[in-house]
């Protein structure tokens, strides 16, 4: 079979200038380029190329770009992928064309459940892992009454549902929840409701700016003194957007942080030299996924989607990012996750030093078990 069109072309689709630009964006492009350079720049003697596009966080833009890449530009695999909505739309197109989709930053569990496909490789994390990783230890530590402030769209609903399940399974109770429209800037009413619910933990089932604004509101009204605030999806960039006093000591879950150990530090250092900024979980994941993909192409001797995916699933990924890892038949990359605590201002050695490791969580404890319907090894 060999390499189609005599080159391997990887498309990186990400939000380059919008809400999630800092989480993946151009950094993901840099990470993919770095992986290619580390791999040697060529596979099976054929050049490896990167194209990238801005999806503006819009599913329509993302899917149109992917369509054009596949129809016209002969792209062989697609990486990046930030907003789940864009990712799922891109997946529809890529799956139909049987091209691998290396999802580094999107969080929806749908990629390996409702909308699973043999061509998805869901890499860095998903919201289920975050909820499990964050909520379970807190319930165990005595936080029994929970209130949810939930972003009113599918992502938020899913996050709440998964987390509520974990709470109830572990003997806690959900005493109330409120659905907040996306992009709300003023959370005072919702904070008041949380306050009058008597909860001892308030979970923020939202992300990005919604997370930042709701946390600000909570501290303004003193909710953070009455109850423990729990961020269910928190990126390092969100932490940096907040006054350290507001978020210090919050416990949360992540798949990667740069100051963890020597291996992550070494890679982060190199990334920083190339790109100028400290890598995020998504960017590290993009590197890891690309490297694994290229290895699989080499071993399969072709860039044909089916063959490469089979090889990727047959070999265990192993690098500074993917530890104790495997790419399951359903496309889920299961690996160690970390429960961390946000450091106080005076604990931080530098701007990047924001997390302290509390606990390493084994992948199979936090990720959902494989959905039988998505077990493509059996088909």
């Amino acid at each position, binding site marked *: 079979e060999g390499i189609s069109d005599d080159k391997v072309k990887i498309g990186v689709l990400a939000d380059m*200038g919008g809400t999630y630009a800092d989480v993946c964006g151009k950094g993901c492009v840099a990470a993919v380029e770095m992986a290619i350079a580390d791999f040697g720049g060529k596979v099976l003697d054929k050049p490896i190329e990167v194209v990238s596009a*801005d999806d*503006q966080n819009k599913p329509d833009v993302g*899917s149109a770009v992917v369509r054009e890449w596949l129809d016209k530009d002969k792209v062989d695999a697609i990486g990046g992928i930030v907003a789940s909505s864009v990712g799922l739309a891109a997946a*529809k197109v890529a799956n139909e064309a049987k091209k691998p989709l290396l999802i580094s930053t999107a969080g929806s569990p749908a990629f390996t459940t409702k909308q699973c496909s043999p061509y998805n490789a869901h890499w860095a994390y998903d919201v289920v892992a975050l909820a499990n990783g964050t909520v379970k230890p807190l319930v165990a530590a005595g936080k029994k009454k929970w209130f949810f402030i939930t972003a009113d769209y*599918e992502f938020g609903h899913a996050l709440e549902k998964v987390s509520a399940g974990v709470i109830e399974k572990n003997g806690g109770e959900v005493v109330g929840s409120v659905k907040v429209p996306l992009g709300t800037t003023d959370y005072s009413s919702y904070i008041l409701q949380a306050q009058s619910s008597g909860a001892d933990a308030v979970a923020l089932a939202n992300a990005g700016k919604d997370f930042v604004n709701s946390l600000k509101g909570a501290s303004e009204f003193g909710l953070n003194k009455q109850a423990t605030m729990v961020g269910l999806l928190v990126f390092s960039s969100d932490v940096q957007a907040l006054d350290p006093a507001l978020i210090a000591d919050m416990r949360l879950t992540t798949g990667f942080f740069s100051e963890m150990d020597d291996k992550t530090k070494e890679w982060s250092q190199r990334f920083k030299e190339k790109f100028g900024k400290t890598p995020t979980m998504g960017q590290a994941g993009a590197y890891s996924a690309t490297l694994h993909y290229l290895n699989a192409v080499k071993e399969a001797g072709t860039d044909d989607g089916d063959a490469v995916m089979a090889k990727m699933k047959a070999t265990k990924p192993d690098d500074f990012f993917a530890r104790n890892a495997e790419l399951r038949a359903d496309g889920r990359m299961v690996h160690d996750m970390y429960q961390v605590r946000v450091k106080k201002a005076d604990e931080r050695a530098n701007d990047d030093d924001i997390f302290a490791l509390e606990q390493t969580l084994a992948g199979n404890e936090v990720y959902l078990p494989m959905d039988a319907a998505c077990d493509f090894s059996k088909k």
Partner: protein
Amino acid sequence: MEFIKSNKFNIILIALALVIPFGVYPVFLMKVLCFGLFAAAFNLMLGFVGMLSFGHAAFLATGGYVTGYLMSNADLTPELGILCGTLASAVLGYLFGSLSVKREGIYFAMVTLALSQLLFFFFLQAPFTEGENGLQGIPRGKLFGFIDLNNNLSMYYFVLAVFLLGFWLIYRSVHSPFGQVLKAIRENEPRAISLGYSVRQYKLMAFVLSAALSGLAGSTKALVFQLESLTDAHWQMSGEVVLMTLVGGMGTIFGPLVGAAVVVGIENFFSGGELGTYIHIIMGLIFIICVLAFRNGIVGEFNKFVKNNF
């Protein structure tokens, strides 16, 4: 022979449209055609009735969502799906129009904007739209039950046919007895009333027509991309269609199409790679430049140039 002579220009254009997909990426062309139709429908209100609607995204999205939902869930043929989307937009146009045509100028713009925003939040929260994710994987289906549209080329010709139909309808209504009344209303509304014309009904009719054709564009677009998302309902989309019309030349027949081609082309150019963050700045600058220096738009200026020099 007479027909060929008087329609020379149009015939050349159509011939060009028939061969161009062999040179240019058809999905891009289809996007231009869909937005061209959308802008032309919008221009029916702005250019020919003189009313700036700042909420036309509502109709684009309604067409798209209805068609998308029916195609995914009701197993319709594409032409029926599109018809339903168009009808839904017409009904919505009737509702919005009844509320808004009482007002004029900027007031009208604001009211349409607010109404479409209401609809945006409805689409955001209603279950059948799949919220942020949008309707994905909408099947293109088989035209009349036997022409498979999954092939981009056959889809292109179908879109071209829809476009020509819509475009012809707009041309026709501008140059019809109805269009003549619209012109009179734009020129002197109180006088039109005193001549016995119930002006609101005419405006409403034009609004419904414009909404239906916008819906047609939205429905077709949903099939082309097999996806319908909130982008189409967002107020920025309403702004974008204004931009297309303005760039191309409001009140001209071909302006909206040219404007759509320019704007879609620019967007495509900037969405690739590193330039993405400049897109809003560029769009904004085009707006400013058009308003300050080229109020007639490309086609408008061209017409003026031809008139002055030949």
